[in-house]
């Protein structure tokens, strides 16, 4: 990788009236260009412009054909058959066929892969002929196509020839800095942490693509610098806009604010498997559901949304938002603000005078996370609860939660499959080796644990929804979490830029038109 060059070529081209160079900035640089070596939104979002999967998500987040033109279940839930698109080539000119799918499965499901959890139920991938692939699963997987929208296809020849036949997340290899996908854009230049340039792939199979001829991504860590760069016209789009700058940006000529909601739900969780409060010998009050209900009734979510989120976010009642598949329509009401009821619940539970406990929060993970926790401390004080807030950087936060150093904590969850089952699997199932891995509080319910695998393999949508509703109702009744709101998506763009925002915060260059 040669450092240098070209940033200013963009500036030079940018002066004439008609320009198709598009310069955008985000806070996080994708740390790899290898689609199987990273499982984070910055990596997968960026690589969606270069690589493609068998299926992809449209502007409405629904699954649509991509490298596969159609798919159907095999037999009675033994797997899925995908019919591949013919005439697709990789950026280096080689053909895409079933062999590449089998190879991409082996690579993505390998020990070194960061995305192998997607293939936990897959037993084999078989190339039936050049353009037909059977993916066999150990049990029925009704939403399998939904779960592989980010499983990207790599060319077996290119990958082997460059000795990148296995992903290498820690060490890096040729595929960390170079890419060869089938997608609408070619990786023209990659300078990690500085600048990444995309150019249209002339041989792309698709047609719906904006007019950007050169897309330049620059990570800008400091949000004030990013806002200034947008206002100065040095970049055409920034993600995110800090909440406190949102209104101001709205009032400036030449730029506009694009407001949406992300798929991420912000919630509070509780310690539910420890006998004592952190650092004391006192009994853990959060084991009592009435205490958790009291907390839910004491937090004034509308006030948080109005003052801290400046009206940009929507309240949440479940672990997923209403746009997600499998959302339980009947459970859309969140517990209302009711301080008298909260106090009565605490009295019933034996804490008429409240108690003191440790509230852990990140201070650089979610939008205004620390402010939300500070507001919560004040709200809980009204019912006599004395929350000791400890707000720390996210790189220290997860280890602290893993070590149980909290009594109540803040968590955000974005369902990777856009399905209500996803948070149940990670946040509600009893913690085990590979399930319930983010259920820090240790909530455990035998009925829920029984329902989750049943949901995963239920093919009938009505029966599936009934089970999802049952789990969602249990989660609400037991106040396993107190969902607060759905995090807003705030992007800023120049007025001459047309774009589409996706709720998973992926930035799709194909949907950008420079006017």
């Amino acid at each position, binding site marked *: 990788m040669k450092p240098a060059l070209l940033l200013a070529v963009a500036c030079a081209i940018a002066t004439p009236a008609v320009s198709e160079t598009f310069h955008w900035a985000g806070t996080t640089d994708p740390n790899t260009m290898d689609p199987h070596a990273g499982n984070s939104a910055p990596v997968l979002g960026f690589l969606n412009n270069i690589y493609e999967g068998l299926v992809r998500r449209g502007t409405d987040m629904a699954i649509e054909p991509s490298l596969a033109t159609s798919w159907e279940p095999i037999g009675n839930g033994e797997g899925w058959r995908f019919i591949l698109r013919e005439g697709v080539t990789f950026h280096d000119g080689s053909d895409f066929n079933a062999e590449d799918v089998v190879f991409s499965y082996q690579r993505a499901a390998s020990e070194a892969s960061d995305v192998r959890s*997607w293939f936990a139920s897959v037993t084999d991938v078989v190339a039936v002929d050049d353009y037909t692939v059977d993916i066999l699963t150990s049990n029925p997987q009704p939403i399998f196509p939904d779960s592989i929208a980010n499983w990207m296809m790599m060319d077996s020849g290119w990958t082997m020839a460059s000795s990148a036949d296995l992903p290498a997340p820690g060490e890096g290899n040729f595929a960390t800095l170079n890419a060869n996908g089938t997608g609408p854009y070619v990786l023209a230049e990659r300078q990690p942490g500085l600048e990444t340039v995309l150019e249209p792939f002339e041989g792309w199979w698709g047609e719906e693509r904006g007019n950007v001829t050169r897309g330049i991504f620059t990570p800008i860590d400091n949000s004030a610098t990013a806002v200034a760069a947008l206002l100065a016209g*040095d970049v055409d789009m920034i993600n995110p806009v800090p909440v406190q700058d949102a209104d101001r940006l709205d009032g400036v000529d030449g730029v506009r604010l694009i407001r949406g909601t992300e798929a991420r739900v912000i919630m509070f969780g509780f310690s539910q498997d420890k006998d004592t409060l952190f650092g004391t010998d006192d009994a853990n009050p959060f084991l009592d559901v009435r205490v958790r209900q009291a907390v839910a009734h004491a937090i004034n979510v509308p006030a948080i949304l109005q003052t801290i989120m400046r009206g940009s976010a929507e309240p949440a009642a479940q672990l997923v938002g209403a746009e997600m598949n499998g959302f339980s329509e009947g459970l859309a009401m969140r517990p209302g603000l009711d301080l008298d009821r909260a106090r009565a619940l605490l009295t019933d539970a034996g804490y008429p005078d409240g108690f003191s406990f440790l509230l852990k929060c990140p201070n650089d993970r979610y939008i205004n996370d620390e402010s939300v926790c500070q507001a919560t401390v004040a709200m809980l004080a009204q019912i006599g609860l004395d929350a000791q807030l400890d707000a720390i950087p996210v790189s220290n936060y997860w280890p602290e939660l893993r070590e149980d150093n909290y009594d109540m904590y803040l968590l955000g969850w974005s369902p990777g499959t856009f399905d209500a089952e996803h948070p149940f699997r990670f946040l509600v199932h009893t913690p085990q080796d*590979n399930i319930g891995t983010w259920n820090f509080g240790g909530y455990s319910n035998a009925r829920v644990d029984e329902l989750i695998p049943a949901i995963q393999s239920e093919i009938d949508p009505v029966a599936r929804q009934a089970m999802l509703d049952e789990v969602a109702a249990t989660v609400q009744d037991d106040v396993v979490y107190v969902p607060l709101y759905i995090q807003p998506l705030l992007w800023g763009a120049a007025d001459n830029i047309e774009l589409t925002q996706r709720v998973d915060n992926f930035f799709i260059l194909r949907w950008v038109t420079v006017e």
Partner: protein
Amino acid sequence: MLAYTIRRIAQSIFVLFVVGLVAFSMFRFVGDPVDNMLGQERTQEDVERLREQLGLDQPFIVQYFRFLEQAAQGNFGLSYRQGRPVAEILLERAPATLELAFVSGMMALAGGIALGIFTAIRRRGFGANVVMTLSLIGVSLPTFLIGILLIYLFSVELGWLPSFGRGEVVEVGGWTTGFLTASGLKALILPSITLGLYQMTLIMRLVRTEMLEVLRMDYIRFARARGLREKSINFRHALKNTLVPVITITGLQLGSIIAFAIITETVFQWPGVGLLFINAIQFVDIPVMAAYLMLISVMFVGINLIVDMLYFAIDPRLRADRTSGGH
């Protein structure tokens, strides 16, 4: 002389070891890199496997000695974030920081000396008082605030200068330079002012004080009495004698310009080693943090060692102490 030199070098090496030890003992408080490296669908097994693979399950002393062992062979390891050799990344980023430090250092020196002379000669003048008052702002405003203010004025409002980045750079034998293009030079202006403002006011105040001191000396009075021209007195006689301490301070400040470029680089998204370090902290990229801290401490220890050796060469009293007794 030899004994003194060996002693000083041994002391320097000891300081480096201690800096490294302190750095490594603190890395675990920065956080856990594993969560950043694995996605949300990771299992506990993945976490432990990766931690073992990276050697993070070992006590920090063991990690430190592993690092030293590798570093002694010129290997600073692979960045967790980029999966590339740390040495390669540092070399790639170094030109940006060094060019910025050089330009802001030169700016600070030239501006500081000029304004220092001006305020010393026109001690009671209106202009000098304005400059002195403004210089207080330079000393007291935090760097990031100055940076943001400059960006809003010159990039957002006036649109004269770029708000971030290095502009177009040209590669000359493995060194990327912004000196050869118009956009590269324009991009240097705001970050250099931001970084150099504090040093400039420092030098200005130093020059002014020294100059006022010198102007009170007898030889200046005699020069005046001899009827020499004011210009000749100020610049040929007074200025020359004020420069010695200025040069010493500038040399020592060069290290801090490079080390404290971190904030300026963050505000301007300047792609140097300081920004790299900030990113490394956010990601808990231990190999990059370790290499950067060692690099900076080598630089500081090196500068101090050279200064000590120069003093030794200049100041005979130090030599006297060594040879016990003497005068």
